[in-house]
């Protein structure tokens, strides 16, 4: 039986000192308390109303953010192969450490930085740089983690003093240890603040790895893949519970170069310890077979984010190891320019077959005495001997007859003074001086005396090694110039640049270059048995010998040695330029480099020619024995 809660039968006791049985006195307070209960419940339910009914979307999103972590799957870059498909640049597996920033606290950064041996300030600066990005994107703070790093991270993951850390498996660049073809290949690194503001990298994001130099940069679009993403459900400790979305990375495409590893290796070896460049190209199509610049650098130092110390060392080095001398070194070509002057003279008719000059070891032009490199003089010199013996007086005379503007005209016709258009970044154009040029740049008149220096490849004239190989290779082809390129593209269809020279004139110049190597000329050291190598030596001065003596010989001011050659004499297949800075004489320093390279080329060609393996495969006897 349930009785009503009220107890009307209980009589109300009058006011007295002891009212143990009177409850009524508190009725008002109890009623007040009931209102309080209602108020509390309204207060609480309104809290839930606020969260659950008025803006559940906001909190739902937050819950999803908690739950779902998007981790990048970095796409491996495409491999870089040589012309025969041999791997030059590979990738290797590595781990990177990313910090998740959504709950990151600054004081958590220090233990991580210390544990991984990173300067605390650098990590902070790095996090600041990423502050413009959405916070759900994690930030990589160290690449190429060592075993020790990995152990450290695993041991401290999830501990309260440490931030949320995520290990990302990434394929990182593996460059040849020796720094082989380092300038040609370039290197990769994280896109910098400045680069992000350029048109080239406008679509990149902070933290993206890009090619920064050489082929890596030029062919970023091909080599760079598309990063994938893994969406995982994680619990509060960051343990993965479930993968809910997976977008695989699309690897970058491999890139086949026109470079021949064998030739590259030979060229690298012969330049080892020297300063200079070698370029070998196939004049029939413009394919670059080898490109060396020394001193080189180790591109792998850049892949994990170059240390500022290493970077300072590279930048401050007076030998400029980051400079690709093959396309960026602009130097006076010296006597290697003489075949071009000779051709200009023949073509423009300032000399004929009968022309000769007498060389007593020097000659005076416009009141100044110009020396020949041979003290005793060459005697009477015609065009052929002039090239073979590299007689300066002969070319002073011819150059004087031509005048600077005609020299410039032919120099430009063969491709000097402007970029060849090779598929590498930051090629330099060299300089072909002319009267126009001088007025434009110095507002001064050209002095005829200056022409005399330019005629032997000195003065204001500068070329890059690539330009020289390109120019001479095109001449050897009879006046056909294919744009040099380092990437083998079967679909490439070049329309070569052509110049109509009188074949007889061209033949005479080429015959001269043949003589340089094969008739006891200045390039005799480049002679190869059985190969009709034609060439021209060059020794370009950086300062007059008098000035040098006054200063005392210093390495930086020593003469540069050049050799440009091609082979065979008819239907050439390879054109090579070697530059040895401070090498003193083209004949001794540069010619052997070209010789070794050309010899390797023809040796390799000869050994491969009959394809013995191929022949055996198709023979019926072979099939029976198996």
């Amino acid at each position, binding site marked *: 039986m349930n009785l009503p809660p009220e107890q009307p039968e209980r009589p109300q006791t009058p006011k007295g*000192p002891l009212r143990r049985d009177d409850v009524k006195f*508190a009725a008002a307070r109890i009623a007040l*308390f009931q209102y309080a209960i209602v108020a509390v419940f309204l207060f609480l339910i309104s809290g839930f109303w606020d*969260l659950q009914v008025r803006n*559940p979307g906001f909190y739902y999103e937050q819950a999803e953010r908690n739950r779902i972590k998007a981790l990048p799957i970095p796409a491996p870059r495409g491999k870089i192969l040589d012309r025969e498909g041999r791997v030059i640049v590979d990738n290797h597996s590595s781990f990177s450490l990313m910090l998740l920033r959504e709950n990151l606290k600054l004081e958590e950064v220090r233990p991580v930085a210390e544990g991984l041996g990173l300067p605390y300030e650098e990590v902070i600066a790095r996090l600041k740089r990423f502050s413009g990005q959405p916070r759900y994107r994690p930030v990589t703070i160290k690449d190429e983690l060592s075993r020790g790093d990995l152990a450290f991270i695993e041991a401290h993951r999830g501990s309260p003093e440490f931030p949320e850390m995520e290990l990302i498996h990434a394929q990182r660049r593996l460059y040849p240890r020796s720094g082989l073809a380092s300038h040609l290949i370039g290197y990769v690194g994280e896109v910098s603040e400045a680069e992000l503001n350029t048109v080239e990298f406008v679509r990149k994001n902070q933290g993206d790895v890009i090619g920064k130099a050489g082929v890596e940069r030029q062919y970023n679009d091909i080599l760079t893949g598309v990063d994938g993403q893994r969406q995982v459900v994680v*619990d509060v400790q960051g343990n993965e519970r479930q993968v809910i979305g997976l977008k695989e990375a699309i690897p970058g495409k491999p890139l086949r170069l026109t470079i021949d590893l064998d030739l590259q290796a030979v060229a690298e070896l012969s330049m080892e310890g020297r300063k200079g460049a070698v370029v070998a190209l196939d004049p029939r199509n413009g394919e670059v077979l080898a490109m060396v610049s020394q001193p080189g650098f180790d591109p792998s130092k850049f892949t994990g984010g170059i240390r500022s110390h290493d970077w300072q060392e590279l930048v401050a080095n007076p030998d400029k190891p980051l400079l690709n001398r093959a396309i960026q070194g602009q130097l006076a070509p010296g006597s290697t320019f003489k075949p071009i002057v000779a051709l200009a003279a023949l073509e423009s008719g300032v000399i004929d077959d009968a022309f000769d000059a007498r060389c007593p070891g020097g000659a005076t032009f416009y009141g100044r005495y110009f020396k020949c490199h041979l003290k005793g003089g060459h005697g009477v010199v015609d065009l052929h001997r002039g090239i073979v013996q590299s007689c300066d007086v002969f070319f002073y005379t011819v150059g004087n007859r031509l005048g600077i503007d005609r020299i410039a005209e032919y120099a430009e016709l063969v491709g000097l003074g402007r970029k060849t258009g090779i598929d590498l970044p930051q090629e330099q154009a060299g300089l072909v001086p002319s009267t126009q040029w001088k007025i434009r740049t110095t507002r001064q008149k050209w002095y005829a005396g200056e022409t005399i220096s330019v005629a032997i490849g000195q003065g204001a004239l500068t070329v890059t090694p690539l330009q020289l190989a390109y120019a001479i290779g095109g001449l050897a082809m009879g006046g056909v110039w294919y744009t040099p390129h380092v990437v083998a593209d079967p679909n490439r269809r070049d329309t070569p640049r052509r110049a109509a020279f009188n074949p007889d004139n061209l033949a005479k110049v080429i015959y001269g270059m043949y003589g340089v190597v094969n008739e006891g000329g200045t390039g005799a050291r480049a002679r190869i048995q059985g190969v009709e190598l034609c060439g021209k030596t060059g020794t370009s001065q950086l300062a007059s010998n008098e000035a040098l003596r006054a200063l005392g010989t210093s390495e930086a001011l020593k003469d540069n040695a050049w050799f440009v050659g091609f082979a065979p004499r008819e239907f050439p297949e390879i054109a090579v330029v070697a530059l040895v800075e401070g090498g003193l004489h083209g004949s001794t320093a540069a010619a052997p480099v070209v010789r070794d390279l050309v010899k390797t080329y023809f040796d390799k060609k000869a050994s491969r020619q009959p394809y013995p393996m191929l022949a055996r495969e198709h023979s019926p006897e072979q099939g029976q024995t198996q």
Partner: protein
Amino acid sequence: MINYRSSRDLDWPLLVLALAISGLGILQIYSATAGTIWGDTWWKQMLFVVAGLAAMHVIARIDYHRLLEAAPALYLGGLALLLAVLLFGRQVFGSQRWIPLPGGFTFQISEFVKLILILLAARYLSELRGDRPTLRDLWKLGALVALPMALVMKQPDLGTSLTYAAIGGAGVFFAGLRWQHAVALALLFVLVLPVGWTLLKDYQKARLISFLNPGSDPLGSGYQVIQSKIAVGSGGMWGKGVARGSQTQLRFLPVAHTDFIFSAFAEEHGFVGVAVVLTLYFLLLMQIVQNAQSAPDRAGMYVCMGVGALLLFHLLVNVGMLVGRMIVTGVPLPLMSYGGSSVLTVFMMLGLVNNVRLQRFVN
């Protein structure tokens, strides 16, 4: 006399409400802990509820006047035990609240002290002469409450010690506290506040600060509240479904089976579920108030209202905390939160209410 009291006369609606809430609590504990190291807590909680029912019956059948007579002794015993906890208790999560019992159970003495304080306050207030409590009476009661408060504060357990204050405060309120005294007490509180601040532990200060501005330190003290608000809010109107709340299941919600159990419930059952449970609590409280109104004497009224006020305080502080409207104090939600001491205490309190109810038939 005993014959008049039978199970029929128990407050069945109160019991049904309490069991309904406990049942939902057990379900939620199960959902929140499945597959974790706390996976066995749901059946333990069932045991606690059964034990609680038994304790409730026992308490209901001892005349509460006898309990009131024993109150001073119980009080002294409680103080001694609190002291013992401080000296020898087991440290869990950085505070000493538990006395280990055989069988792996632990015993949180401060929970039972609530019960003792309700009885003590009821006795003290019911024996007052005069119309309203004088200042002197207030001081005495204040001192009686302050002693266990200080001991519990030392554990440190701010939440529980505040519940003691709520018991004392509710008592004097129903005893007819003068508004002048109330104002004076409020002023005193404001004056003591700066001093009290210096007495707080660092984590307690941090909690206060983060309550005022939860975003200031999202991984620290504010973390719990933020995660709780996310859990509640993301539940929306209808909830994510049983065992499907990501905040709960992936443990972003801290201690989802104890202090934050109602957040977990709100995430999985939505606003509708919340409204249902709050209605159950509301009815429960109203039922207790009704028992107070029909109490046979002042002491009985004080006992019932003490229980009612304490439960309301728990609800306000716990649920208010979940939605970010109250500071994080670590007060369990009565009947729902996992915890033997808490469940037993609440059922024993309900036993007291039933006791008072049964006594009204005795005359």
